[in-house]
């Protein structure tokens, strides 16, 4: 996969720090899982976290001696490993978001060759999948905050460039854009917004009932 559009440095730092809003974090993690370059950046940024953590003045532990619980006395190699979810996930972010894969997604038709599927997310922001038929346009819109769009299939272009599978459009509140799906395949994207997109004109009135696009 040749990825040409990456996460912004400021987004990467916030992600590695654990400060990025949850919806944006999900998309950032999905891109990082696909992108060697961004994985390297996150690793470097975790060194920064390690440096800040080890520089903190130590706060004495009440339990100075660790009591090893009996069920944890087994050598680690013999213990059952949870390889799917929990705080230390090993399954890929996409597998966690879409356990049945893209084929199992139940799309909601918005009209104009556009479909949407909302994904649950904790905290502020919205997360969802967007499918746009070849050649169709997502009408011009701006954002109240950051927006991350990761291409999962097909491709699209706007004034900021062409985006193919694995590419991420990391746009902030200053950008207004009107993405166009390229010809050939449906363009499927994972989209997170800090705040819902603000559409102009007719489309806004049409999709308003599905607030959270």
């Amino acid at each position, binding site marked *: 996969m040749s990825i040409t559009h990456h996460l912004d*440095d400021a987004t990467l*730092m916030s992600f590695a720090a*654990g400060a990025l809003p949850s919806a944006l*974090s999900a998309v950032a993690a999905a891109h990082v899982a696909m992108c*060697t370059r961004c994985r390297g950046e996150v690793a470097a940024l975790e060194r920064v976290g390690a*440096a*800040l953590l080890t520089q903190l003045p130590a706060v004495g532990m009440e339990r100075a001696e660790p009591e090893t619980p009996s069920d944890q006395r087994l050598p680690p190699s013999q213990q059952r490993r949870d390889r799917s979810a929990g*705080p230390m996930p090993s399954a890929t972010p996409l597998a966690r978001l879409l356990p049945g894969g893209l084929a199992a997604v139940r799309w909601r038709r918005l009209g104009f060759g556009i479909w949407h599927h909302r994904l649950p997310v904790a905290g502020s922001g919205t997360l969802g999948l967007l499918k746009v038929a070849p050649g169709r346009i997502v009408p011009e819109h701006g954002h109240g905050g950051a927006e991350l769009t990761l291409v999962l299939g097909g491709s699209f272009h706007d004034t900021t460039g062409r985006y193919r599978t694995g590419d991420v459009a990391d746009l902030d509140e200053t950008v207004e854009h009107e993405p166009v799906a390229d010809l050939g395949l449906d363009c499927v994207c994972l989209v997170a917004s800090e705040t819902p997109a603000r559409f102009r004109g007719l489309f806004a009135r049409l999709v308003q009932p599905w607030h959270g696009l």
Partner: protein
Amino acid sequence: MADLLRRVAERADTTAFRELYQTYGPRVKAYMMRLGADAGTAEDLAHETLFTVWRRAALYRAEKGSVASWIFAIARNLRIDRLRREVPWQQLAQEHFEEASGEALPDAALSEKERQARVHAALSNLPPEQHEVVVLSYLEGLSHGEIAQRLGLPLGTVKSRIRIAYQKIRTALEDLR
């Protein structure tokens, strides 16, 4: 540190583990307190962080990152899960997953100490206004928008300070990658 962890992974060596616990436990506790936990909760989370280290020691790969980065990543994920009650999406880059392969590995010959020293130096050389936004991200867990609000700055200014700060740290690490 990598050696202590190897002893834990291979022999369930409790002496090695105690040393890791005493080195990192009090720091992780301090980290959790900075992020808003009371002392008791912070201690529980520090304890859990270190026991996650014990349980997952066999998954750690020294060539993918330092022990301190790995412990930071574990603590960060626990903090998102317990203190923010959100889903930690970050995967642990320092661990070995069957599905990942063909990673570009950093040159193993370069000492981990040297890398850490460079990061420390780069951080302490940042001008105060850049250091501040980095600390607010890592040690207070504030998003760009929250930092902007806290400091009364435009969002764009916060982001550009973070970008410049990271650029400097990256330059410091460049020839080591």
